């Protein structure tokens, strides 16, 4: 099992993911520069947090046309596990792998705090070690995390059980209290909170650890 961590100019949580996976769980990682064109030898892909391309145009808009991301889309279509954290979630929506869009927080503040969440794993393989309705706490750190989708899209997501992480106290105005979404197949997960910052006990909590540990079986 090797996790490929895609690195864009402006990514800043790539090393956090490496520490969480390798340092805390012993899962090997490999950094993949976004201009690479192959995922050979990679078993799971993480799009880490940060500010790819300085958030120019829209968050994730320029990153989504990177050469490696066509490979990531094909990998996801084959059922490969793909995780997008924060900016990675924004990129997944820009790629169309997940519906909706992430926009400016309702109160305009950049939020950097612990967020209480409830987990609704459904078919999401990344969340299979969590219980239905389980309350957890993960850090959030974003200025543009307000999930928006039209009413029909949101209703479809709810109906299919794809709203797999919900804010217990909505901090940013997200429609449906959406903190994280899965695709219908359950192999792609995008979330605004940072599970990789809640794997090492020194960070104050380890609620994110089981998410990455799902890759170990």
């Amino acid at each position, binding site marked *: 099992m090797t996790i490929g961590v895609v690195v864009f100019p402006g990514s800043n949580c790539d090393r956090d993911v490496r520490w969480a996976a390798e340092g805390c769980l012993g899962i090997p990682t490999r950094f993949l520069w976004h201009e690479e064109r192959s995922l050979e030898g990679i078993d799971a892909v993480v799009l880490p947090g940060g500010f790819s391309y300085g958030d120019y145009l829209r968050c994730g808009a320029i990153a989504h046309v990177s050469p490696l991301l066509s490979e990531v889309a094909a990998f996801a279509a084959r059922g490969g596990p793909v995780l997008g954290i924060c900016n990675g979630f924004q990129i997944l*929506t820009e790629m169309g792998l997940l519906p909706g*869009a992430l*926009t*400016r927080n309702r109160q*305009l503040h950049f939020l950097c705090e612990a967020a209480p969440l409830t987990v609704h794993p459904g078919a999401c393989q990344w969340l299979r070690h969590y219980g239905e309705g389980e309350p957890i706490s993960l850090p959030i750190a974003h200025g543009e995390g307000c999930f*928006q989708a039209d009413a029909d899209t949101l209703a479809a997501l709810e109906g299919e059980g794809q709203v797999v992480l919900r804010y217990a106290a909505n901090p940013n105005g997200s429609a449906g209290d959406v903190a994280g979404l899965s695709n219908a197949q359950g192999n792609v997960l995008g979330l605004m909170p940072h599970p990789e910052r809640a794997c090492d006990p020194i960070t104050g909590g380890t609620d994110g650890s089981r998410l990455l540990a799902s890759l170990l079986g």
Partner: protein
Amino acid sequence: MTFPPVPRFQARVLVSLRPSVLDPAGEATRAAAQRLGVDGITQLRIGKAMEVELEAADLDAARSQIERLSDRLLANPVIENWCLEQLKPVEGAGS
């Protein structure tokens, strides 16, 4: 032997938030207008204007390039609309 110059065009694309999308930055700007004493501003929404120069065989080809660019990159159809506000040949550049 001389080649005919490739026609060049100038385009202006306006990207605006769809009416259903919240625009907290626009709302904050509206509130600032009020504090400044500029009365009567009932709505203020922030979009983007992109000025693009391109080479294309003719006006129709230029328009189709701009449409492709706007649909796929400049605007995110989930939250934004775009319109081609202006498309004209660059003067002195042939065509």
